[in-house]
């Protein structure tokens, strides 16, 4: 019988696994999708061209003027009629549209980043705090901070109406006072009267010089706010106040509100950015709050509390990374939206001030010449708007699929 000698088994360490994080997984899924890749390509093209143009291709719109080149169609080679190459043609002032479209990209990029930055920061913080403190007890310090914040936000309206920031500061002080003295005339109707009166005084008095109507409106708003702040100060209450404020902002049609804000602030690209940013705060606030409410029930939040973590750390280290996916998607889509809104404001003459290159303003400048055959002056800025918005939307769709936990294997 043949001798079977057992082979020596060499144990190799096959259990070498990569430490894959959720983000790396999501990135892999993102680049494996065609639409997302297309979106990324368009976005990269847009961002790169804008940055390169801004830093390496000087352009001073104030001196860019040449009536001899008025409304020339696109050319690929120079000829006698048009001595210089104009890839996209020229507009009514003889300006090179290609150059203006590329430089307009820089403006659109800025609008997108600043506007989304405003709405994401303010809305995101409101949503985070509202969702978190709705479920978790506040400490006295947090209460003081949050109600000061509430007062500040509530004070913005009268401060805006009377065109000076004093009321917002005073209202913030009232919020702090309410949180600092929670036992002042507690459970008594006096507390309500005292705070309502204080609220009325601090908002009405500084607005006296702005006219009696303004004083009246501010005073009523101040009395209401003071009465609100006299109530028992709990997370649920804070969340309610914030979310109802968001509902109020949301109840205005976005463009109308943006136009109203620009009308108040005055035209200009920067003002437009602020207006667009303010208008979309509620979107982020609601999204963040709903995401927080879903995550905060998870046991790891309780576990983080049980090992003695501070609230701030729980909010920013434990909660925030877990709610990022919907917010990243919304931010990407929001960029597209902001670009579109800026173009709309520019078209109406409320955004960028001419001769600043801005896609919407360029459309607004040139659509009158469409009937005389100058299609290029409208087509290319329009195409730029469409493509950049499409790019961000495709990327957002791709991100949504990539970050969707249900697809996770």
């Amino acid at each position, binding site marked *: 019988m043949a001798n079977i000698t057992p082979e020596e088994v060499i144990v190799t360490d096959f259990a070498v696994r990569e430490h*894959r994080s959720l983000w790396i997984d999501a990135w892999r899924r993102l680049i494996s999708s065609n639409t997302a890749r297309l979106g990324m390509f368009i976005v990269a093209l847009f961002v790169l061209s804008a940055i390169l143009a801004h830093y390496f291709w000087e352009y001073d719109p104030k001196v860019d003027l040449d009536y001899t080149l008025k409304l020339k169609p696109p050319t690929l080679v120079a000829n006698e009629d048009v001595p210089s190459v104009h890839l996209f043609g020229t507009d009514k002032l003889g300006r090179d549209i290609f150059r203006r479209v590329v430089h307009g990209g820089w403006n659109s990029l800025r609008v997108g980043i600043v506007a989304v930055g405003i709405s994401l920061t303010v809305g995101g913080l409101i949503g985070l705090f509202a969702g978190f403190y709705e479920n978790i007890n506040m400490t006295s310090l947090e209460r003081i901070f949050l109600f000061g914040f509430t007062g500040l936000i509530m004070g913005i309206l009268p401060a805006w109406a009377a065109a000076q920031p004093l009321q917002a500061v005073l209202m913030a002080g009232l919020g702090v006072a309410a949180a600092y003295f929670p036992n002042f005339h507690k459970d008594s109707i006096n507390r309500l009267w005292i705070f309502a009166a204080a609220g009325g005084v601090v908002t009405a008095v500084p607005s006296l010089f702005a006219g009696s109507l303004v004083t009246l409106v501010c005073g009523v708003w101040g009395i209401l706010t003071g009465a609100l702040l006299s109530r028992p100060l709990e997370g649920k209450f804070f969340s309610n106040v914030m979310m109802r404020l968001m509902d109020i902002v949301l109840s205005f049609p976005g463009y109308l509100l943006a136009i109203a804000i620009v009308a108040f602030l005055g035209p200009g690209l920067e003002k437009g950015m602020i207006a667009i940013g303010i208008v979309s705060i509620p979107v982020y606030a609601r999204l963040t709050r709903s995401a927080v409410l879903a995550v905060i029930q998870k046991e790891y939040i309780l576990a983080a509390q049980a090992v003695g973590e501070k609230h701030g750390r729980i909010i920013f280290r434990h909660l925030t990374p877990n709610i990022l996916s919907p917010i990243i998607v919304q931010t990407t889509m929001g960029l597209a939206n902001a670009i579109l809104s800026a173009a709309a404001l520019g078209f109406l003459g409320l955004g960028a001030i001419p001769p600043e290159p801005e896609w919407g303003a360029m459309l607004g400048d040139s659509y009158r010449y469409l009937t005389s055959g100058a299609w290029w002056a409208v087509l290319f800025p329009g195409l730029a708007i469409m493509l950049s918005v499409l790019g961000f939307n495709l990327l957002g769709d791709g991100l949504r699929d990539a970050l969707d936990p249900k697809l996770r294997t």
Partner: protein
Amino acid sequence: MTSLLEIKNLKTRFFTADGVVKAVNDVSYSMESGEILGIVGESGCGKSVHALSIMQLIPDPPGKITNGEVLFEGRNLLDLDERDMRKVRGRDIAMIFQDPMTSLNPVFTVGYQIVEALRLHNDMTKKEARKRAGELLTLVGIPGAETRLDDYPHQFSGGMRQRAMIAMGLSCEPKLLIADEPTTALDVTIQAQIVDLVKKLQQELGMAIMWITHDLGVVAEMAERINVMYAGSIIERGKVRNIYKKTRHPYTMGLLGSLPRLDDSPGTKLASVPGLPPDLLALPEGCAFAARCAYRNDHCLAEKPPLVEIDGPDHIVACWRWEEIAGINKNE
């Protein structure tokens, strides 16, 4: 000598739109250091809420601890403010939770989470903490602990996650570990491993453990004393032997009777306690268990039975008819 943990007349209420939920009603007991205490009862009987009350992690609103004292080494935890309480959590009292699937944060590595817990209460550099985290994972029996530190929770199995949670709970060497149904979500073999692990750790580290469960088999194996809870109150308390062999409360008898036994003939229907636990919004005036109790009489319905010592502090029961029940208990 003061006990490690002494709870006096603890009452926790949830003030909801439907009314006041009386989740914990007048719970009093004490725990010595190094002791394993089992807390058993069916779902919704206030086991977990009472543990969260000790940690002061009851969501407020709607929850509120309305009465009582939680003395930890003689210090009333309910008097501490959030900042001092934070120092107690994790360092003096640690807690592990029921569902290992969701109690680790999915976006951080396991190592990061243990290191974080370590550095929260100890003055440690990142390097030291990482080394200690590796030791802790080895201690709870995770092979290749050093490399597994960089794994994300989704790369761990359920049992391993629960081990990691235990490692996190042990990180600051607490004097009391509250384990809130730590084995419920695990399968039986893993349950046995976790039970053995906790027993071993308890012997090595000498901490007290409060083991909350509805699994009577598990507590019998590990605990010295048991509190049986029903509708937010303790109804029977004592040494394991007394509870299992000299059961005096009809509810405990029902619980024990509902366990399947090896010597049951095949096809025997599992016994159950008839009826449902009472609505905590409207607790009856008398004994909370009376409605489901086979031995009730008018007295039970009219007046709530107090906890009485029937065998010194080693066996305490809240039943009017425990003496009569003693005669019919077949387990003895």
